[in-house]
């Protein structure tokens, strides 16, 4: 209503725009004056300052790499530290014809053309202008002297002291702590370029890799004034780096050594952990290798030797080795059967030496061809009776079996802080349909009941599944780091505890496992002779996949490598478990004969004092021991 009809008034529009043009012109002039004032400030008032920086060649920002965190075992023994080492670095911009300078270096140090190729590659990885690039590490006294004498021919070349990772324990922790190596081009792309601007090495595997961010720390820098030759004249400003965090491992070097000794040079894996906390006490994968080789760049020949060795020292058997769990899974399967109600502690199965599915005439054999007669749960575990578990698995069915095994960690990553752990495999109907496009056969459920078939697990998973039996279903993810700078690692993705309808089922299975060690007909009773404490255990064998056609080995070796892998899992003291041990001996054939003694030795090393007596803190009530022995 108050709005009159608007008619375009060209004269008024023009006036309006003209007004804005005048305002715009004033603003432009004013802002250009601001720019000129700024330039006046930089070029006239601050001229001296900038000119000094520029003329005296020049201000540099030098990154100061943080000191990497140290790694200790649980008793404070150093596992990884940093050692000063001299390296040769070169600044391309100061070297003039840097290719020719490289030639001089090769000549002075009497190196080979291959070395020169590597130097050139390293030079080309230089990132920022005027950044010194390290090209040769671990200089010897003589090499340093040679460089010093020829310094005048080597513009832009310096001998630099820097800290380099060192593993004083050598091969002991190569598979758990891992090692560091030079940052490669692929890693360069994903790293924070600022934080890593002074860093040339990075954790490649194990703890070094998993806790890279914590171990590395925060880069510092200094602004320095240098002369034309690159020598630092004065430091203008310095911000200190924040050193990386120290890590205390849960590993115990003495137990580690004892476990290695127990394996006695055989290929295999040992994991020992504390079921109450998930702390890994020992982690052995044999054969191992010296991680120090990798720190400053392993030679191609040495690497090829490690990589191509038939014993596969680089292969982490604890985390990456996949084996059918065999009979070691029976305690977990028994828990599943009890909880699902398909068996009870007293229900019995008649074993004629084999099991037959109704309407099929295929015989699934017990390992003991003559049969064990009537078998209850206790006997089934003690005797590792296959027929009983065929029957149990059949009644349980694949769906429930698969679900229970998943709760025990089979088919998924169980660790908290281990790099490149393999998830293993727990088959299910869906898995078979998706990967094989086939329906599930009832026979396949049967052999899963004794840990054969498609099922695959790592020694670490077997240790964890056993720890769950020992710890009555309470989940603690196995972890290697006890604390980072005093702080315990947090499990951000905890597994749900296994809660049984009748918690006393744990005790029943535990009892069966004790019978394996201490019962009159226990399969591993020899390994428990003279034990100061009650052990619960279970043996197993894993069939070996045939060696590929066309590979040439010694005839005797081929024979040996076709043998089954020996497995054994156990915990002790049985009534108040302090240690869980899982052992895999490659081609060891007999779980109870070969792997069980290894388990026993590791337990002894942990639980007994120097005089061979049970440490006071691990002593369990004698009454329990006495009653158990009567059976």
């Amino acid at each position, binding site marked *: 209503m108050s709005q009159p009809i608007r008619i375009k008034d060209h004269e008024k529009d023009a006036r309006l725009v003209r007004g*804005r043009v005048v305002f*715009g012109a004033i603003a432009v002039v004013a802002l250009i004056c601001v720019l*000129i004032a700024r*330039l006046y400030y930089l070029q006239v008032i601050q001229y001296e300052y900038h000119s000094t920086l520029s003329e005296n060649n020049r201000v540099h*920002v030098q990154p100061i790499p943080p000191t990497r965190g140290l790694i200790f075992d649980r008793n404070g023994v150093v596992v990884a530290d940093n050692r000063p080492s001299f390296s040769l670095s070169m600044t391309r911009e100061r070297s003039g014809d840097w290719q020719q300078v490289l030639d001089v270096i090769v000549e002075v140090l009497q190196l080979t053309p291959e070395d020169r190729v590597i130097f050139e590659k390293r030079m080309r990885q230089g990132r*920022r202008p005027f950044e010194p690039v390290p090209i040769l590490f671990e200089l010897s006294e003589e090499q340093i002297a040679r460089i010093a004498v020829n310094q005048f021919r080597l513009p832009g070349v310096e001998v630099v002291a820097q800290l380099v990772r060192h593993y004083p324990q050598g091969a002991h922790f190569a598979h758990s702590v891992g090692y560091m190596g030079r940052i490669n081009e692929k890693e360069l792309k994903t790293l924070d370029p600022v934080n890593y601007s002074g860093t040339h090495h990075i954790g490649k595997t194990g703890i070094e890799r998993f806790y890279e961010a914590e171990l590395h720390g925060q880069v510092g820098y200094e602004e320095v004034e240098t002369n034309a030759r690159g020598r630092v004249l004065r430091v203008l400003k310095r911000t200190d780096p924040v050193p990386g965090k120290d890590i205390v491992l849960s590993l115990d070097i003495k137990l580690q050594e004892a476990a290695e000794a127990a394996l006695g040079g055989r290929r295999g894996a040992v994991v020992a952990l504390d079921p109450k906390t998930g702390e890994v006490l020992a982690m052995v994968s044999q054969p191992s290798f010296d991680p120090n080789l990798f720190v400053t760049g392993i030679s191609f020949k040495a690497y090829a030797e490690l990589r191509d060795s038939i014993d596969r020292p680089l292969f982490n058997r604890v985390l990456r080795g996949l084996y059918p769990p065999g009979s070691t899974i029976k305690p977990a399967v028994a828990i599943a059967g009890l909880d699902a109600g398909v068996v009870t502690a007293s229900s019995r199965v008649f074993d004629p030496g084999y099991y037959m599915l109704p309407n099929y005439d295929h015989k699934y054999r017990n390992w003991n061809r003559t049969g064990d007669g009537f078998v209850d749960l206790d006997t089934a575990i003690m005797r590792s009776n296959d027929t009983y578990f065929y029957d149990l698995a059949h009644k349980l069915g694949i769906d429930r079996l698969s679900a229970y095994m998943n709760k025990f960690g089979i088919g998924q990553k169980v660790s908290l802080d281990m790099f490149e752990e393999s998830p293993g495999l727990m088959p299910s109907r869906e898995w078979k349909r998706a990967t094989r496009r086939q329906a599930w056969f009832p026979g396949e459920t049967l052999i899963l009941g004794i840990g054969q078939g498609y099922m695959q697990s790592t020694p670490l998973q077997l240790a964890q599944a056993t720890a769950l039996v020992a710890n009555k279903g309470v989940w603690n993810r196995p972890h290697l780091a006890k604390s980072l700078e005093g702080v315990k690692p947090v499990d951000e993705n905890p597994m749900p505890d296994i809660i049984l309808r009748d918690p006393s089922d744990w005790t029943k299975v535990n009892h069966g496992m004790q019978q394996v060690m201490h019962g009159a007909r226990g399969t591993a009773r020899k390994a428990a002779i003279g034990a100061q404490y009650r052990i619960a255990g279970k043996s197993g064998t894993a069939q070996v996949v045939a060696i590929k056609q066309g590979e040439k080995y010694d005839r005797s070796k081929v024979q040996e490598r076709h043998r089954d892998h020996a497995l054994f899992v156990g915990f002790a003291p049985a009534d108040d478990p302090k240690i869980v041990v899982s052992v895999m001996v490659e081609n060891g054939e007999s779980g109870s004969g070969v792997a069980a003694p290894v388990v026993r030795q590791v337990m002894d090393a942990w639980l007994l004092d120097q005089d061979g007596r049970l440490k006071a803190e691990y002593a369990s009530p004698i009454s329990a021991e006495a009653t158990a022995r009567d059976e």
Partner: protein
Amino acid sequence: MNNFDRMLSSEDVMRRRATLLQRLHIDGPLLVLLLILAAGSLFVLYSASGKSWDLLAKQATSFGIGLVSMIVIAQFEPRFMARWVPLGYVIGVVLLLVVDIMGHNAMGATRWINIPGVIRFQPSEFMKILMPATIAWYLSKRTLPPQLKHVGISLLLIGVPFALIVRQPDLGTSLLILAGGAFVLFMGGLRWRWILSVLAAAIPVSVAMWFFIMHDYQKQRILTFLDPESDPLGTGWNIIQSKAAIGSGGVFGKGWLLGTQSHLDFLPESHTDFIIAVLGEEFGLVGICALLLIYLLLIGRGLVITAQAQTLFGKLLAGALTMTFFVYVFVNIGMVSGLLPVVGVPLPFISYGGTSLVTLLSAFGVLMSIHTHRKWIAQV
């Protein structure tokens, strides 16, 4: 009858008086200033690029292409342009959408439309001219000063391409496009109290942008701007070094080809966004002031063209293009000298880069068209 004769003859006189330049619809003063800038640009670029003839030849070629497109555009009447602007705007937005979708499929930032062997361009470049033209077209049909509703629609028209370019992500270009559209509103007499209230509202909006929209690298740039020394190994490096380069130039500079900072690779991007640092180091305060003078003359001429434009569309468009040009200059020099955040805005006509050259010269072609297609009769 008699009257009609007179009219004809007077137009005839005008046509005879018209010089070659006027017949080509070219504005003399603008052309002279642009040629001076072109020559100066090649000088500085030769030094900044480390005496690369190759780069120089490319830049000169781009200049040639730009001049041709400027002359071609100057031939179109503003009325003709106004007719096709809406269609151009729609196409531009569609192309930006295409880039957006392609970019997300490629899992990364893409600013280009690339049909191999046929054409490769940035749709956002087009929008630099189309954006002010669209708003000018829209507002020229309304009463001035614009009503709230029309301001709202204008802002919507600006907002869509702006948002798409921010997403690319290309903060520099999106800000230039925002400026292009906003200056039309300003020239159209947007009420002061609205301008002031928008400026007041900008504070909470920028806080929201910080937390919800900006990419980490953009936040990092602003943080680095506020305290460049806080990150001297990363983004702060550019500013520290460019300040040192400019500052060490002093009043008269170190002389052509004698700059040390830029030649020793201290200065990153010395031939593109940071080229003013090379100019400042080698020609000093005097050199930069001379450049600023030329820019000032260009802007002055642009504002004269704005004031003399006959149609409202012409006025609004010419004013917005001129003011946006100034934004280029101010933002670039401001950022290199450490006054403003580092957003990727090239220094007009001096920085190396063909696309921005062609766009800028096309914009001047539009200015020339607005100026040279005025009806002589109307003034008699």
